[in-house]
């Protein structure tokens, strides 16, 4: 009994790392740039398909390909913000919702057209099945590495946002875009950099997720929902909070599915709703 519970928790924590990785970019855009990117999940799925195509052609590991593609992802995020999303900044919450909602539909249908509706998965090699035993619990090497990657990315992003001068500029524009413009800190030049960084986290999430589990062109929105819950649970603006949120969701899912397979997602949403009632500002909200 104790073993089962312990195992559910450990596996939940590990899958929480994957959710956190998926939600990191959303945490940044929601918490720092203060906008809701409805296309967040779809953009990650788009990266997954890009990796699928490239690994298919070159035959390299998706992790290596993702590493090489990092600058491309940064550039894509930069351009997307600079020439499309930036036009909605300072115009209220509706335009950005509509634009990213449209983007979501375009990506889903574009992928459906190009790849068909089939479910895909990337191969990560032998590491996928490797595991070791700690006491009574089996720990997968791959889930552990993904969790550690999520932690490393959070440490890196935290340092980027709170220790570097460009990070301070991003937070300054997030505080008050009009004030930034007044003193010559053009918001239109800062946010694209932030979105470039968001896109890098998306690419990392795409690589890890599509080796871990299946994906298809229409799966973005359901993944987005889990990411939203992780971000809101943890508290807006806190990257460590997002990790905690991901872990809570992972554990809730595991316990739910233990009761009944159909309870997995329901348990996730119930825990989310309960947390929202008890602590609406999130666990680690930054003031």
């Amino acid at each position, binding site marked *: 009994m104790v073993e089962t519970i312990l195992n559910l928790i450990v596996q939940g924590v590990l899958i929480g790392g994957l959710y956190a990785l998926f939600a990191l970019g959303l945490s940044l855009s929601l918490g720092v740039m203060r906008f809701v990117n409805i296309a967040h999940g779809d953009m990650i799925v788009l990266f997954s398909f890009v990796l699928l195509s490239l690994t298919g052609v070159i035959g390299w590991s998706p992790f290596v390909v993702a590493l090489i593609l990092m600058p491309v992802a940064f550039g894509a995020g930069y351009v997307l913000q600079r020439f499309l999303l930036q036009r909605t900044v300072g115009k209220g919450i509706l335009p950005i919702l509509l634009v990213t909602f449209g983007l979501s539909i375009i990506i889903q249908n574009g992928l459906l057209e190009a790849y068909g509706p089939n479910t895909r998965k990337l191969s990560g090699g032998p590491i996928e099945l490797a595991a070791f035993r700690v006491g009574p619990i089996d720990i997968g090497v791959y889930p552990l590495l993904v969790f550690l990657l999520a932690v490393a990315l959070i440490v890196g992003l935290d340092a980027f946002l709170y220790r570097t*001068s460009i990070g*301070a*500029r991003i*937070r*300054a524009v*997030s*505080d*008050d875009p*009009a*004030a*930034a*413009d*007044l*003193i*010559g*800190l*053009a918001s239109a*030049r800062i946010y694209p950099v932030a979105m470039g960084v968001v896109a890098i986290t998306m690419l990392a999430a795409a690589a890890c997720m599509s080796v871990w589990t299946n994906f298809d062109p229409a799966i973005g929105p359901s993944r987005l929902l889990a990411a939203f819950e992780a971000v809101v649970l943890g508290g807006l603006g806190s990257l460590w909070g997002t990790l905690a949120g991901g872990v809570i969701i992972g554990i809730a899912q595991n316990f739910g599915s233990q009761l009944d397979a159909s309870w997995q997602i329901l348990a996730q949403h119930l825990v989310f709703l309960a947390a929202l009632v008890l602590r609406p500002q999130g666990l680690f909200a*930054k003031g």
Partner: protein
Amino acid sequence: MHDVDLSVGEGEIVSIIGANGAGKSSFLKALVRQAGRVTGSARFARDDLAVLSTRDIVAKGIALVPEGRKLFPSLSVFENLRIGWELGRKGGIALDQVYEWFPVLLERRDQRTRELSGGQQQMVALGRALLANPRLLLCDEISLGLAPRIVNELYEIIPRVRDRGVSVIVVEQDITRSLAVADRFYCFLEGEVSLSGRPADANRETIMQHYFGA
């Protein structure tokens, strides 16, 4: 605003006075191209400001202390100041100098500016603009809502900045304060210059007439 003709010499302190809505703030914002559509010409040394972006204008040496301070509240004192330094011209005013002028900012350098008092926030705003090493400093209502003692402290800095060859435009509703520090003044009334000259040459009566309109 219309028909405003205003000049500032090197190392000169010029005061713009006028009632609420006279166009003082809009004029300063227009100088850094943050006031929407403006016609007319603004020259700064050899540069035509109308073709430059705010960022370039700041880099050429015009820095604004905006009305209402406009700090970045979640950033520390140090981070706010550093942004001014990074965006500006490189020159003689460095962080040490600002900390020397406002020692309290050194004590609170790691505190978020939202936690500071109004006076301390205004010091950060002035410091941020000074760190841009401007050749022309624009001060918009720096006394607003502050205790007289703090205002004195802030205004003591203006002549010292001028001694470094910096020109200053001071916008104030507080006439006495503003004229005391200025070499010349302009009085705005409903978007026009209603009176200008040297503080010593104008008597109080005349200024009041042009301040409120007769």
